[in-house]
């Protein structure tokens, strides 16, 4: 399952919204069809439709969903938009995931899992080693942060934490998962996240999809 699709599905699950996943057939180049380009002009996934509202970009879609379901209990607090400072911390750590954490971690996922499975190419160990080096430095910062707060933006879960789920889930299926053992607060935070019903449910779907790709 695409990590960006998973990002949106986590938020849908967290707010308890009813939704339907419509598969886009990449093999048949459906993502470049006129019908799909009308939803996402860059020909990417996910695209999202809620009545007349059509959106693309997984983080934009996710925030729309969270805001729409604002009154649904805990979901109300995922963006903290009622409080300027707290909302700012959610934004900071959402940006950090996109621009620090993901660039360091995702190459390991691509090299160890995705490229071998999808393209039959061997792992580029140099890329993996360089990425792990960057990731260690990023995790140093996360360890310090999570030693002071239960979650990244404060003491309850937010959109910032949820954004880490898809790629980290796959990272834990690579041979390098044990890297997190050196960062006890980060590891504990990760374990709290994946105990959430939304992530247990999606994790099962993602693992099944990954197993399906390996066998293909």
């Amino acid at each position, binding site marked *: 399952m695409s990590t960006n699709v998973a990002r949106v599905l986590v938020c849908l699950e967290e707010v308890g919204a009813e939704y339907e996943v419509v598969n886009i057939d990449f093999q048949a180049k459906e993502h470049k069809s006129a019908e799909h380009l009308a939803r996402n*002009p*860059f020909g990417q996934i996910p695209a999202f439709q809620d009545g007349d509202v059509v959106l693309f970009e*997984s983080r934009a879609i996710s925030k729309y969903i969270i*805001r*729409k379901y604002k009154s649904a209990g805990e979901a109300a607090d995922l963006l903290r938009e009622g409080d300027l400072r707290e909302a*700012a911390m959610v*934004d*900071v750590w959402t940006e950090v995931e996109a621009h620090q954490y993901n660039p360091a971690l995702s190459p390991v996922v691509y090299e160890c899992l995705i490229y071998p499975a999808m393209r039959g190419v061997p792992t580029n160990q140099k890329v993996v080693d360089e990425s792990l080096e960057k990731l260690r430095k990023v995790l140093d910062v996360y360890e310090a942060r999570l030693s002071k707060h239960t979650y990244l933006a404060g003491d309850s879960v937010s959109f910032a934490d949820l954004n880490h789920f898809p790629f980290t889930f796959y990272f834990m299926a690579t041979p390098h998962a044990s890297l997190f053992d050196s960062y006890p607060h980060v590891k504990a935070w990760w374990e709290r996240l994946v105990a959430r019903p939304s992530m247990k449910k999606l994790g099962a779907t993602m693992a099944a999809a990954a197993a399906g790709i390996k066998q293909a």
Partner: protein
Amino acid sequence: MAPMKVYGWAVSPWMARALVCLEEAGVEYEIVPMSRCGGDHRRPEHLARNPFGEIPVLEDGDLTLYQSRAIARYVLRKYKPELVKEGDLEGSAMVDVWMEVEAHNIEATLWPIIRHCIIGQYVGRDRDQAVIDENLEKLRRLLPVYEARLSVCKYLAGDDITAADLCHFGFMRYFMATEYAGVVDAFPHVKAWWDALLARPSVQKVMAGMPPDFGYASGNIP
């Protein structure tokens, strides 16, 4: 109320993102200049503000923020919430869509071109035309989408300027100073949108601190 402080070097396109939003917000702020070549961003006192050792950093009283887009959102939400279309479910989603498009496509495509066309010559880096050409090709595939969008509305998120437009400013400023500005000029609605941004007093003010060569030729090395 003490003015907000922004730490960094004013020539940085990331710094420009924060500054243009501060200008649009009409709020008092002070730039605390830092030296990139002097490694100020790696010193302990800066790492205490931003553990990733980057700029800009915003201080608003006892609140310290980093990541230019997070700073942009905070400043606008606080002083000009209409620029993030706060309270408007669909409108705020459109602002987010185009901020994400910029974040994942524009910066990554324009910055390598800017580095090779403008900066390289001053820092002893050979111009890599292959890198420039690869990114120009990506840009040529992005711009038709922008052109289509800006043909149906004046600004990216609708008919009013928002954070989504402002966040493009810094990188566009330098790209349009390269010899490849014509690539954008070929798309009339994108060109008109860019001209409209340039006409804004906020943009002009911030641009005054951004010489097209980043200050290298005049010896003001960032």
